[in-house]
């Protein structure tokens, strides 16, 4: 099924890109090194810097955080300065927002929507993605329309060692955010518990509709 989708996309996008763009491929070459390291160890931890252009102030807002990946389905992001945390699993996840004193429980569908690009890092063979090489270490990633989610694209730059260095996500018409990855560490998996957030006592726990 995934191959059929990919083929359809190649046919659709082919004429546009024929003159100068590289052909669409599977995403495996982009995520190969990370996938191998995750397969060997079971857990990856990396410092992230999230940069977002705020169109109102005209300034770029930066936040330092930590991303943890444990295949096949667990991802967690944490921003220590604000205490904001997100955990994503196949069965859902949690989103803790201390500024709002609330914790949102995500169901499996929410988590799938929220974790689209992280899912690609976790499971390079996941259905519904394609890639196009832009330069030796730079790729355009394409998430195909899938399960009610619209098609989307992002740009991935790899470091010399083949691990992800930068992920850029555009939000038309003017939004842009970038994740910089620094200091990948691999270790043994710690299981499900670190990927489940328990709400602090005075936080409101809500579900998305």
């Amino acid at each position, binding site marked *: 099924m995934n191959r059929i989708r990919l083929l359809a996309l190649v046919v659709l996008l082919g004429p546009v890109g024929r003159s100068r763009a590289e052909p669409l491929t599977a995403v495996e070459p982009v995520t190969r090194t990370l996938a191998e390291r995750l397969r060997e160890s079971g857990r990856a931890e990396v410092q992230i810097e999230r940069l977002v252009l705020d169109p109102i*102030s005209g300034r770029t807002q930066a936040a330092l955080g930590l991303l943890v990946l444990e295949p096949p389905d667990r991802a967690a992001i944490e921003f220590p300065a604000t205490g904001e945390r997100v955990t994503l699993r196949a069965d859902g996840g949690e989103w803790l927002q201390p*500024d709002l004193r609330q914790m949102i429980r995500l169901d499996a569908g929410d988590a799938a929507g929220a974790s689209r690009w992280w899912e690609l890092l976790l499971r390079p063979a996941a259905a519904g993605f394609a890639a196009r090489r832009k330069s030796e270490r730079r790729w355009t990633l394409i998430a195909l329309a899938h399960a009610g989610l619209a098609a989307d694209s992002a740009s991935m730059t790899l470091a010399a060692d083949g691990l992800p260095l930068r992920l850029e996500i555009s*939000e*038309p*018409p003017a939004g842009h955010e970038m994740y910089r990855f620094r200091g990948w560490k691999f270790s043994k998996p710690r299981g499900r518990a670190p990927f489940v957030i328990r709400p602090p006592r005075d936080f409101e726990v809500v579900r*998305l509709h």
Partner: protein
Amino acid sequence: MTRTLRLRAALGAVLAAWLAGCAPQPVRVPELAQGPRRARFEVALAARGAQSVADAELSAWASGTALPDLTGVEARLMLVAPDAFRLRVASLFGTALDMAARGDSFTAYVPPRRVALETATAGESLGVADPGGLGYRMWSGTWRPPDAAWRDAVWEDSLLVLRWAAAADSVRCAIGSNGLPRWVEMGRDRGRSIRADYQSWTWIGGLAWPAVLSVRDPRGAYGLRCRVRSVQFRRSADRSRLAVEVPEDASHVTREQLKRAIARLGKL
């Protein structure tokens, strides 16, 4: 004086001070004179009104019988005197809502649904005249009662309540003893009305600015509570930052459709 006597004297002084502290304190009754209150109101209003541009971060919680249970959201707010604002609701998962108004023009874009509402005549098409001015006054607390409103002001408990007409709307504004608006009600004939409660104010360099604001309609169908923080003032603004960019392929919708799209924003 021996050491024991000195100790007793010191203990006596401490005991007297402690007893004095336990004595009933005089209750400060809010001053019920219009002159000083108007003076305080006008000084504070002039200070707020002198700020051409204000940027702030906002936490907001929508509620009401006409709305589903919605989560709290974080937003950025920009106010430009005298009649413009932009509000952008965004999170780790992207922008949920971007809206701006300037005078009678209004634009709202919901990126997850790719739907937008754009109008240059909000008074006619949305039934809310001058949404830009209304938003600016509400978030900055810069309500400007005319002289006549002061002449006819009445006391409601310790609040001085002024009433005046602004275009087709009637406005009632209650001013507290600190000279700051406590609540404002706006209504049109016997139709729609709205009430804003200024639940707390913050002081930024000696200037009072709304810190917690609650807005609702009298029937309780729609309500919004905002906590404002990280307020920064600037002398001028790049007007292009007030403009919400709507993609060409976005669907243009009516007010009711926009409301439904916003109500469905619960999904990521």
